[in-house]
């Protein structure tokens, strides 16, 4: 049975768009139920304090207020916020949904108010009086480790959450053999995910049916359902979770939050539908943060540029408590620390530490952007030290295409790649040689062009269950209706990635239908089979494969039915144009709908065949997939102001087979621009008292349209052998590959000033300082201003 690819690979317009562009889609806050009440939280203004007392009387008696609850009121009713990650000898730091005796970060909820409308709830929250006894906060992760530092969790003797080590190859020997050891401390700063839709939860409990329905802006409806049931102590069948339209996640909605559990609890406890919508300030304070690692990288190199060994020590700031995957994320950095290079000996030591801040967790890329940043910066340092071109140093250390599958000393098996090819393509597309010539010329004029490279590999399609905290498979059900229309139910829960379209493309090709014949359903635990969710660039590679396999099951059955009716060998039938026909004689055919109808009417089925037409598949991937690519960034630094202007950005990505190039481009663009945010603009800044200074969008800058030039993208295609579709995943590629390219470009621009490293974000003031210092030290070029007067700026 041949499958014609009439839709796979085509830039089909998205099926989800009509509702979104007309304002007809429903996000959680758009829902309204009769008698719905609104929840507002009272949150800690202190980073570290003991709660002396909470007086709720004034709030309780305010008109329109239904209830005011504190941690004490919840006591027995509820468990703690779950963490699915387990590491050896890891200390537990689990958070009660409402703080009881102590608060450990600014924004931690201490009480909640339920009222008839949002405005009343907000007013009443102001009337709750909490008396705190402030304690000394621990903000700096390095100081948190110091002797005598205040301890966050009094049941332990220090703030170390865990230590994790990984060693492969003979590291000692590698460093002993080295001609040079390149060493650098690097900070991968704390970021705030800023999905444009803040979190929101609506919950409704029907006692007659004993059914609790929770609508949440989440990436993982099924896992959330399991966890809500566990925390509330009710059977899982009581809970029904729906993720309606979700306005972006980037990992920040890959979690189980106190507010989700509490709102669900309130609906049961108070017998009214409840709604809570996060404000942006709450989102900044109390939705997970990302990154926040300090690494010391050491590379043992030979004079010719061969990397012999790598040592990396990472201090990971986990925040005050664990969220769903908090402790796990830095270990992904460890696993991916070799990047796309053949490094025979590796040692990674990670220390996770508690501080009085919001938890870090999986933010787009989750551990891999950090790894890529560390290794890609280090490669540039090697190039600078050995006075070699950064492209050559990289090329020298790539494994050859024929070496795949390639086993890394960190224990991974890279599925397939051709790093040379993507690097060549990126150099060609950017006209690298000419750029270097232009750079030299401009430097003579006192203008500072910088060219930055990054060649990355990332780990996607999370993942084999053996390597995941709670299942790495994905499910799909294909249900063909008697009329011949198809429902594809996926356990993945897309929220912007476009699987309603790409899965329909796969289904249309496999069944010989049009995308309009297919409807992709997701996000509702009562409708779709148990699934894991959308994160880790897994929706297509894992979820799509489940869909593909379920489709082949349906198709096989249909072929058997059609073969029986047509009296032909099912293997010789083709599905196309809504027909099933004999390949050698297309006139001998049956309408698709007829064959389907036969499955339900059940009069002409082959003997012994079950009626109906539905198949489910749980796909368990045998490995991760490893997309890769090469990026080139070109910046100009204004030496007078320190401003960085991004002039060009070239990205060549390889995400395996492409189902819909439009969607892939969109993912790449979005990822690169988020990366640009990390490289140039974003940083969650807490002051020494643990106050979040970047507490609103007025102080935390994310990229705007005018910060970005037209991105120049291209692809190489190396299919993954791990799944039948050959896809690898692309959800995080941009975020992983771009940050180091951008910073490498800035450092390259500043090379004439003797700069070899610069921590992110590359703030203009920091750059200005570096330039000024170099000039004061003398002997450095004095520049005329560069780039003055340009309209576009990366500020």
């Amino acid at each position, binding site marked *: 049975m041949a499958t014609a690819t009439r839709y796979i690979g085509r*830039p089909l*317009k*998205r099926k*989800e*768009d*009509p509702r*979104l*562009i*007309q*304002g*007809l*889609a*429903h*996000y959680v*806050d*758009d829902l*309204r139920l009769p008698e719905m009440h609104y929840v507002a939280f009272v949150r800690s203004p202190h980073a570290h304090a003991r709660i002396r007392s909470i007086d709720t009387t004034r709030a309780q008696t305010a008109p329109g207020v239904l209830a005011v609850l504190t941690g004490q009121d919840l006591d027995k009713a509820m468990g703690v916020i779950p963490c699915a990650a387990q590491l050896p000898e890891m200390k537990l730091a689990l958070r009660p949904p409402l703080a009881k005796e102590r608060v450990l970060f600014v924004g931690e909820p201490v009480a909640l108010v339920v009222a008839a*409308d*949002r*405005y009343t709830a907000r007013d009443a929250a102001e009337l709750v009086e909490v008396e705190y006894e402030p304690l000394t906060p621990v903000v700096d992760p390095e100081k948190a480790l110091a002797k005598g530092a205040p301890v966050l969790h009094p049941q332990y003797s220090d703030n170390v959450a865990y230590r994790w080590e990984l060693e492969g190859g003979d590291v000692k020997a590698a460093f002993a053999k080295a001609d040079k050891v390149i060493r650098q401390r690097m900070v991968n700063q704390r970021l705030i995910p800023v*999905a*444009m*839709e*803040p979190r929101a939860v609506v919950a409704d409990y029907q006692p007659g049916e004993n059914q609790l329905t929770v609508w949440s802006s989440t990436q993982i409806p099924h896992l959330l359902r399991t966890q809500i049931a566990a925390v509330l102590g009710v059977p899982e069948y009581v809970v029904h979770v729906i993720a309606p*339209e*979700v*306005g*972006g996640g*980037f990992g920040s909605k890959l979690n189980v939050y106190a507010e989700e559990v509490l709102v669900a609890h309130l609906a049961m406890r108070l017998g009214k539908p409840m709604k809570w*919508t996060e*404000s*942006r*300030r709450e989102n900044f304070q109390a939705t997970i943060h990302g990154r926040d690692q300090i690494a010391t990288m050491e590379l043992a190199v030979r004079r010719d540029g061969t990397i012999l060994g790598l040592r990396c020590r990472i201090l990971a700031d986990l925040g005050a408590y664990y969220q769903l995957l908090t402790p796990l994320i830095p270990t992904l950095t460890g696993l991916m620390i070799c990047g796309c290079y053949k490094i025979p000996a590796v040692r990674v030591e990670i220390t996770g530490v508690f501080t009085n801040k919001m938890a870090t967790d999986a933010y787009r890329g989750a551990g891999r952007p950090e790894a890529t940043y560390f290794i890609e910066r280090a490669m540039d340092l090697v190039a600078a030290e050995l006075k070699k071109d950064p492209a050559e140093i990289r090329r020298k250390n790539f494994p050859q295409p024929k070496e795949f599958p390639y086993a890394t000393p960190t224990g991974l098996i890279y599925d397939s790649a051709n790093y040379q090819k993507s690097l060549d393509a990126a150099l060609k597309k950017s006209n690298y040689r000419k750029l270097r010539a232009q750079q030299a010329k401009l430097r003579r004029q006192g203008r500072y062009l910088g060219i930055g490279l990054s060649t990355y590999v990332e780990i996607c399609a999370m993942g084999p269950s053996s390597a995941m905290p709670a299942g790495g498979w994905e499910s799909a059900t294909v249900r063909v209706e008697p009329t011949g229309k198809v429902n594809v139910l996926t356990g993945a829960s897309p*929220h*912007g*990635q*476009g699987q309603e379209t790409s899965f329909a493309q796969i289904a249309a090709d496999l069944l010989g239908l049009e995308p309009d014949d297919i409807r992709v359903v997701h996000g509702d635990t009562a409708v779709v089979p148990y699934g894991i969710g959308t994160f880790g660039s897994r929706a297509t590679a894992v979820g799509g494969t489940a869909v593909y396999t379920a489709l082949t099951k349906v198709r096989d059955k249909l072929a058997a039915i059609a073969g029986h009716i047509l009296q032909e060998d099912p293997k010789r039938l083709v599905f196309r144009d809504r027909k099933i026909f004999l390949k050698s004689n297309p006139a001998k055919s049956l309408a698709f709908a007829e064959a389907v109808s036969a499955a339900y009417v059940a009069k002409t089925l082959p003997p012994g065949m079950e009626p109906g037409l539905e198949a489910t598949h749980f796909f368990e991937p045998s490995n991760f997939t490893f997309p890769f690519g090469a990026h080139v960034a070109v910046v100009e630094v204004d030496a007078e102001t320190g401003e960085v202007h991004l002039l060009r950005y070239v990205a060549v990505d390889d995400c395996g087979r492409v189902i819909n190039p*439009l969607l892939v*481009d*969109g993912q*790449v*663009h*979005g*990822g*690169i621009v*988020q990366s640009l945010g990390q490289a140039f603009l974003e940083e969650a800044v807490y002051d020494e008292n643990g106050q979040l200074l970047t507490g*609103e*969008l*007025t102080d935390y800058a*994310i*990229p*705007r*349209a*005018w910060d*970005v030039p*037209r*991105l120049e993208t291209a692809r190489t295609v190396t299919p993954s052998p791990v799944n039948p579709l050959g896809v690898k995943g692309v959800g995080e590629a*941009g975020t992983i590959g771009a940050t180091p390219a951008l910073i490498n470009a800035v450092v390259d621009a500043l090379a004439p000033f003797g700069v070899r490293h610069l921590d992110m974000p590359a703030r203009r003031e920091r750059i200005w300082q570096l330039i000024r210092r170099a000039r004061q030290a003398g002997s450095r070029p004095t520049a005329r201003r560069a780039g003055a007067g340009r*309209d*576009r700026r990366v500020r």
Partner: protein
Amino acid sequence: MGVVIQVRVNGKTRQHEVEPRLLFVHYLRDVLGLTGTHIGCETSLCGACTVLLNGKAVKSCTLLAVQADGAEVVTIEGLAALGGNGGLHPVQEGFWEKHGLQCGYCTPGMILAAVELLQANPKPKEEEIRRALAGNLCRCTGYQHIVDAVQFAAKKMAAGKR
């Protein structure tokens, strides 16, 4: 103490007694049930709440419902009618055609900001588009397809006028 306001929203006159502090975005969403207009911040920065107020793009989260008394308002739900061809507005078409959205949360505001731009400047250059959308944040798309969408709409509208 309520204040009675009358607003023409998407061609329909609406009259309600509202609390003076009611934000216009909440009036649209909670009172009129027009939930296509979104809220993404409280600091007037994200633009998700953008609507047309007397033809001008404004952030409806930074407008009191009482300030809109007497105004003519277009939200995403009413935009198609402005397109004048019974179908989608060309800007909506552009967003669909060019994949100008992913999660769609910023999209209604983005579209309305683009509509105002094209009214004032029917043939904007890329830089002008990027500048005109400075008040609208998108975390998903990286903006490139949004720029393409606006250019698509500009062409389409120019062709329609000829």
